[in-house]
């Protein structure tokens, strides 16, 4: 079964069609990349999937269920988590709280329970703390648990975004330029990490990236957008050699370099 099926979505901003008739089938457990020139509509595509924007046309299905019309928090609860192109952490809160917040929807404590300090609530809270810290350990962020998020180095902040996304227990993880601002070495580590979390947590991953090394290494399937429209789709090999993609996006050097 496909984890995600996007059929014919379109989004227009005023006169500008940012996403135009895009179809995509994402196989469960796969890593799919969406690439394309700047302004091609990749981020907008993610925003459509996560409910930040509503599509003007088309349908989006998560494991067969249509998620069009849902609010972002509802989409998240159904199992889609994301990171942002421009990091959006809760910058003034500690790292641990950043992760705990992502568990909000899975916890159930209500005001009466909290005020009365019910056993169930206390237990739930301990569990949440445990899981949050475990996730931080998992990503090597445990030493930062009490740090204020804004004081972390850039690359670390990106990793924290991933932890936060994982904490929502997603089925589908959307990563928007996870390697931006990372050194080649960090990018390599990131590649490994994506592989690992996909296996450990049984995830399906869709990512946007301009770092071709990362994209070609990691993805099984690539969708290329230009001016909102899909111009190519296929395996890394096919995409790398697609003249349209080379012209619009990769450039000569990338071909020779990669």
């Amino acid at each position, binding site marked *: 079964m496909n984890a995600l099926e996007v059929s014919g979505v379109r989004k227009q901003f005023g006169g500008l069609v940012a996403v135009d008739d895009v179809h995509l089938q994402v196989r469960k457990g796969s890593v799919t990349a969406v690439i394309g020139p700047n302004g091609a509509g990749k981020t907008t595509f993610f925003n459509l999937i*996560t409910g930040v924007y509503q599509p003007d046309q088309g349908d989006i299905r998560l494991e067969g269920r249509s998620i069009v019309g849902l*609010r*972002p*928090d*509802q989409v*998240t*609860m159904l199992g889609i*988590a*994301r990171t*942002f192109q421009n990091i*959006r*952490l*809760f*910058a*003034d*809160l*500690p790292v*641990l*709280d950043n992760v*705990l*917040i992502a*568990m*909000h*929807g899975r*916890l159930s*404590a209500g*005001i009466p329970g*909290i*005020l009365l*300090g019910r056993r169930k*609530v206390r237990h739930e*809270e*301990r*569990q*949440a*703390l*445990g*899981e949050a*810290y*475990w996730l931080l*350990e*998992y*990503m*090597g962020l*445990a*030493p930062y*648990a*009490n740090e*204020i998020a804004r004081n972390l180095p850039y690359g670390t902040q990106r990793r924290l975004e991933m932890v*936060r996304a994982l*904490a929502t*227990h997603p089925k589908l993880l959307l990563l928007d330029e996870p390697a931006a601002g990372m050194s080649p070495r960090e990018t390599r*580590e990131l590649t*490994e*990490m994506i592989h*690992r979390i996909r*296996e*450990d*947590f*049984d995830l399906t991953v869709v990512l946007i990236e301009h770092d071709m090394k990362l994209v070609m290494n990691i993805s099984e399937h690539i969708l290329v957008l230009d001016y909102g429209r899909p111009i190519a789709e296929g395996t890394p090999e096919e995409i790398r050699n697609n003249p349209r993609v080379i012209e619009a996006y990769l450039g000569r050097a990338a071909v020779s370099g990669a």
Partner: protein
Amino acid sequence: MKQGMTRLRTRLRRPRTQAVLLAAYTVLSAAGLAFAGPPIVWFLLLLASLLLLYYTDLPGAVKWVWAGVVVAVLLPVCASTGSSFESFMEVATQMGIYVAMALGLNVVVGFAGLLDLGFIAFFALGAYTYAIFFSDQANHFIPGHHFPLPADLFWLCLPAGLLVAALFGVLLGLPVLRVKGDYLAIVTLGFGEIIRIIFNNLDKPVNITNGAIGISSVEAPRFFGVSLSFPHQFYYLVLALLALVLYAVRRLEHSRIGRAWKAVREDEIAAQAMGVPLTRTKLVAFAVGASFSGLMGVVFAAKQAFIDPTSFTMLESITILVMVILGGMGSLPGVVVGACLVTLLNIQLMPELTNWLNTLTTAGVIQFPSALSPSKMQRLIFGIILILFAVFRPQGMIPSKTRRHDPAALAKLAAEWQAQTGGTFRAGVRPADGQDATARAPGHGAVTRAQGQDGAKEGATL
């Protein structure tokens, strides 16, 4: 010399030493309040002991009990020897009322980041709830002569005021939360004014609030047969309610809901993406904040025995906001101190100061032209104090601190969690897998170590 200083400093850092010193200070100021004059100075010194208490390194529980003893026993008992007893109790009662309201507003502004300039409306709702039904006012629109309700029902009216305010918090929130940031400020300001104007005019077509004339002869509440009429009685009532409010805010702050408020404050879009429902979270903040205010409104009406709309002007909303910001947004001790300080300034220190200047003037020590008579300078002085505070203490008096978790305890919880779930949230993944994965983790000893322990523990559980 220098060494002596450092030794002193390390000694001062020891909780035991701190406790002894603080106890000495507290006893001294309490004794001063009881036996020496002028009482106001000692009263302030005794209150200051609570501030010192906050800065000691004593364990949390000890601090709470200590503070409880000071405010519930020491302060009233020592003040009761002087003639100003009830006056202090009145001031302290009003302080308590404002502290509770400031704590409520802090939930809305400090935690959830929603600027509310009409907060006093909820206070008004609570106050009118009591005043209307515990005077003969309700007879004007409810047939039969059922009112005033028996004063023993006062304690029932407390939750009623709380609920009414919370309900209005939600009703207001529903439409209003569509707007953001400073637009919200003006909309809530408008709401506050609307409520006040309506209360000011609801004497026709049906006389519900008695309009601008206000509702007088409000029954004094009765509590287990004791009629409350003196400030010290209200002081204990307010103290008890305040303890409840503080408890509730503390609990909520570090819960799922408190975290959601802060998430919304920091970044709405990210909060939503993390599964936090925006509207519901904000509504809860509004309702919780409003409910404290409504609760205190009931007490206020009972204490004043008279209510009219002039007590609920926008200036009041702003005053409460000043308390929150001045104290330190989002910081409970800060808000408490801010509310106490502003109330003290307003109703105790400023009048005392101007009275003192006045005495000097009448005694001919200093001369003011009549236009500059000191009794008219309250606002000016208050204004200057606000500016100075803002400029020199921009984070608030006690800025909010983030709660630090002990990493060791966290690691233990994490281990427990792993033991229970197998270290992943997908069913069917082998624990060994998780362990393997972490061994490859980019960083680290800590992780591998924790993991190792988990493995052992897991073996045990299995």
